């Protein structure tokens, strides 16, 4: 349905048929009343949120204020696009808690750099999406105390994946142009993207500033994007990438135009199919659709062949969890009931007070990971665990670098299973839940960009295929991902 010139009102159902770039053009030409549109968007978000819990906060007043400001002078690459932000990414004036009760009441005095860049380009921030507490999980069931678990958009009795579950869920469910901010430490963009049937793009480590991201693991965290299409994910990445002097790990290299890669020919590109990802633990339905995705790439002229990555798949999980929890346990040491977030009555000495606040307001998985990370760094254990993991990380990264001397990209299933029921997750042991990340931790440890591409449905549930690129090769992922998308 086209919007004729002179029509000021935007109907919610037009969103289905209008792509994001066309929408931005219409906003800039004032053919869409952006305030009316955002008002309708907020209504839609509230309705969805009642059933699905994708938002910890819907920022109605803030979004309408931004829309009124934009209406005066509509400009920017993201003009008028509703953008949701994972709760671990700071937005000025909006409660940002990383999904944890210990940060309840914290309203940042600043925007994360990535959010600031999006706002400058006309994005309308509509709210903070739900997640596993601090990113500690792969199913978004480890939400903080008092928080709601997000439900899968295709089956509310199933998981959205995690930890960016809310971001992926709303990206699938919403009917108007929208792009989400997500964050990945060990796979938390690609996994929920797979379970919710959307594109999830995690860039190279250091490509997007981490300033304003509430940390999980400093050497692992990356802000990324989720969209209904590869183009949407690329559009937001274009805007938020770049050097930031406020982040000492920010890469000072030029930003490519990722959007320009969408639709380019992939003829002659060489793709390595990760052999170890197709073992007996892989769900047959998932395998069927991923192999079809690979076949789609071949029909577009790419050459696919098996490649072996034995270290990454076999040792990625312990390496990731030892490094990730070690870094997290030091990062979370600052959360103690002082200066910001929740507090208690000042009783006892500082050890007693800090222990009281932390014990009362951290969720179970947060406590487990703090303990794991503290243990891994302790005298008598750190050589065998933390320091060993740092060396295995090097070996894993070298394994990927060797593969990229031959291949433009690597491919595997994103997650070995279909989105599980919550009742099935409850029966898993701790180790089994950690093992679900086994196809994702490798690229995250090596800081490699990766993209979840939806490749079909099995028993009504989405299946995702993972494309992995070498450092700063996000463009190739968009190029390949846009060709698989049919």
């Amino acid at each position: 349905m086209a919007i004729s010139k002179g029509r000021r009102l935007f109907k919610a159902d037009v969103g289905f048929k209008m792509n994001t770039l066309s929408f931005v053009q219409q906003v800039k030409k004032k053919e869409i009343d952006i305030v009316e549109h955002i008002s309708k968007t907020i209504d839609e978000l509230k309705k969805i949120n009642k059933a699905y819990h994708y938002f910890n906060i819907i920022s109605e007043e803030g979004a309408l204020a931004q829309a009124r400001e934009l209406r005066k002078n509509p400009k920017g690459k993201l003009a008028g696009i509703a953008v949701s932000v994972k709760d671990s990414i700071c937005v000025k004036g909006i409660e940002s808690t990383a999904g944890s009760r210990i940060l309840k009441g914290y309203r940042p005095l600043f925007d994360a750099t990535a959010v600031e860049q999006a706002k400058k380009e006309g994005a309308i921030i509509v709210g903070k999406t739900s997640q596993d507490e601090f990113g500690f999980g792969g199913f978004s069931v480890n939400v903080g105390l008092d928080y709601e678990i997000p439900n899968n958009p295709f089956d509310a009795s199933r998981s959205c994946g995690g930890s960016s579950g809310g971001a992926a869920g709303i990206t699938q469910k919403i009917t108007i142009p929208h792009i989400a901010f997500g964050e990945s430490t060990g796979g938390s963009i690609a996994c929920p993207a797979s379970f919710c049937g959307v594109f999830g793009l995690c860039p190279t480590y250091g490509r997007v500033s981490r300033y304003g991201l509430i940390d999980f693991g400093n050497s692992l965290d990356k802000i990324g994007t989720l969209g209904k299409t590869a183009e949407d994910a690329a559009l937001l990445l274009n805007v938020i990438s770049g050097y930031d002097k406020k982040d000492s790990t920010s890469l000072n290299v030029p930003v490519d135009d990722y959007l320009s890669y969408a639709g380019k020919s992939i003829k002659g590109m060489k793709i390595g199919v990760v052999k170890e990802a197709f073992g007996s633990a892989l769900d047959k339905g998932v395998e069927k659709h991923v192999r079809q995705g690979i076949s789609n790439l071949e029909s577009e002229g790419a050459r696919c062949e098996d490649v072996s990555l034995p270290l990454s798949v076999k040792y990625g999980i312990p390496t990731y969890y030892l490094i990730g929890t070690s870094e997290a346990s030091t990062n979370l040491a600052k959360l103690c009931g002082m200066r910001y977030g929740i507090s208690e009555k000042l009783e006892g000495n500082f050890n007693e007070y800090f222990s009281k606040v932390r014990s009362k307001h951290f969720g179970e998985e947060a406590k487990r990971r703090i303990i794991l990370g503290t243990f891994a760094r302790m005298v008598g254990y750190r050589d065998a665990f933390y320091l060993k993991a740092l060396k295995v990380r090097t070996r894993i990264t070298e394994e990927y670098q060797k593969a990229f001397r031959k291949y433009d990209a690597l491919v595997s299933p994103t997650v070995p299973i279909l989105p599980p029921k919550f009742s099935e997750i409850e029966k898993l042991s701790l180790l089994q839940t950690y093992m679900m990340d086994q196809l994702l931790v490798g690229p995250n440890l090596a800081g490699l960009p990766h993209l979840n591409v939806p490749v079909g449905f099995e028993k009504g549930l989405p299946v995702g295929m993972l494309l992995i690129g070498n450092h700063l090769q996000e463009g190739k992922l968009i190029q390949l991902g846009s060709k698989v998308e049919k």
Partner: protein
Amino acid sequence: MEIDKELLKHVANVARLKLTDSELNKFLPQLKEVMEAFSRLEDVDTSKTVSSIQPVALRNVMREDKPGKCLGQEDALSQTKLKENGYFKGPKIV
């Protein structure tokens, strides 16, 4: 390696966490299983490998030692109820 209740309590104490008996009983077998599985890292030959603190090549960056704008006192104190006369209030040290 042996992880027992006393070690778990000690680690939790170091991390400023006071676990309930129920948490101790739940976490102990979970962490034992996980650390046992993670110890298979010893199978990987890293005798000639350097550690990776970061996944990409990074240089340490420094800024000029010049004073600049920073967070004001009012803003700094705005996020907590635990404050008095322009100071953060905290638990007693001793």
